[in-house]
């Protein structure tokens, strides 16, 4: 158990494992929502040390994994325009679209830039008045305030050559879609700590109630995850379904009001296509009417057809909690991080890449 030395407190970790083993009497399937949590569970070998009765399945909380092929195609289409600088978070570059990735069009000469923050894209637009700067605004609720702020700033500065390609996805509607699936196997959720830092916990109460499913807001470090798992299992064993907060050192019940305000100012809730999962009603943010001149889809009159997904990739079943990455026939053979067939093999937060990199701990 060499890796336990990476825990904040290995002794405490051991006690948590012990306690989880003690309270678990029935088989339970828990899903962690966030890709950062998946990475941490796999990397730290937690999956191996949990009792056999507990199955962890890996949720859709990785923007690289769920951004639909058509949206990648939209970004590629924009990047190939003569006067456009397409800016993106680095993780998105290697994700395959319907025929290529952003990295490939960049190598072929398109002006694609990796930025750390959307606010840098607004500065870039100020410095390049002869160009159109588009920010590829992907992400969950955690990222939405920064993307919204970039639009608010551009508007206040009178920057007209800036726009965003919004592909925001929202956690609660995705949880509902998974829970209402007839094949659903999920008994309890670890909700994503940083999403709730922004949004708070209110949205989760009706879901826990309606589906009688415990939801524990959890951080992403090994001890957080162990505590979150323990809290969820204790509820399940007692037949409870409450919303609890393991990550109170960052999450307040009401979230961050100012961050939510900026989201509300710029975005409207819309249906969204999730890669591997399909369309989920009211599950994404699009730029609203008030700020429509910053919406790249309208500005460039984008009309990209819905693309077929690669049938060889079973990422949808993985993110629904029905299968594990190692059950994919292409895992580690046709599909590897160097040549990914599907998105979860691209980012280290994707379940397939996490299993691939730390596979010795999961075989």
């Amino acid at each position, binding site marked *: 158990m060499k890796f336990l030395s990476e825990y904040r407190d290995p002794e405490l970790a051991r006690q948590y494992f012990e306690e989880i083993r003690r309270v678990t009497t029935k088989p339970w399937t828990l899903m962690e929502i966030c890709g950062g949590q998946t990475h941490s569970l796999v990397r730290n070998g937690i999956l191996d040390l949990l009792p056999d009765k507990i199955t962890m399945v890996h949720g859709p909380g990785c923007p690289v994994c769920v951004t639909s092929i058509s949206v990648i195609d939209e970004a590629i289409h924009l990047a190939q325009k003569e006067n456009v600088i397409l800016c993106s978070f680095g993780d998105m570059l290697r994700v395959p679209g319907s025929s290529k990735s952003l990295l490939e069009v960049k190598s072929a000469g398109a002006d694609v830039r990796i930025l750390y923050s959307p606010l840098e894209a607004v500065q870039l637009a100020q410095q390049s008045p002869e160009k159109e700067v588009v920010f590829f605004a992907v*992400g969950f609720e955690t990222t939405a305030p*920064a993307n919204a702020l970039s639009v608010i700033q551009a508007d206040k500065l009178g920057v007209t050559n800036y726009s965003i390609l919004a592909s925001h996805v929202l956690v609660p509607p995705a949880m509902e879609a998974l829970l209402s699936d007839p094949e659903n196997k999920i008994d309890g959720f670890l909700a994503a700590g940083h999403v709730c*830092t922004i949004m708070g916990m209110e949205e989760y109460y009706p879901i826990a109630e309606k589906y009688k499913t415990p939801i524990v807001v959890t951080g992403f470090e090994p001890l957080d995850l162990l505590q979150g798992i323990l809290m969820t299992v204790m509820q399940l064993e007692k037949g409870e379904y409450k919303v609890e907060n393991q990550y109170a050192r960052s999450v307040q019940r009401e979230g961050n009001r100012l961050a939510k305000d900026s989201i509300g100012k710029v975005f409207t809730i819309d249906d969204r296509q999730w890669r591997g999962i399909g369309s989920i009603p009211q599950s994404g943010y699009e730029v609203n009417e008030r700020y429509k001149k910053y919406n790249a889809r309208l500005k460039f009159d984008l009309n990209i057809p819905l693309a077929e997904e690669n049938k060889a990739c079973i990422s949808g079943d993985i993110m629904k909690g029905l299968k594990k990455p190692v059950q994919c026939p292409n895992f580690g053979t046709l599909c590897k991080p160097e040549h990914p067939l599907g998105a979860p093999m691209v980012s280290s937060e994707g379940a397939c890449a996490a299993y691939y990199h730390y596979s010795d701990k999961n075989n």
Partner: protein
Amino acid sequence: MCLAIPGKILSIIPKTDETFRMGKVSFGGITKEVNLSMVPDAAVNDYVLVHVGVAISRIDEEEAKLTFEYLKQIGETNELNDE
């Protein structure tokens, strides 16, 4: 890219419009300019969680240090070195 990284506010650059409130934030020695408009109470020497250039919450010092160490171990602080 989904995680937020803790850093310490070294200085605050005052702006008349709150939307543009910026500060210099140190992440284990790497300094970056960060937007502080969503944490209006945060002051110099406070620790904040920063996600893609925007501070999203205040946290205490002990917590910030432990979290930063963990993120460094797992390579999640690399995005700070991108430029």
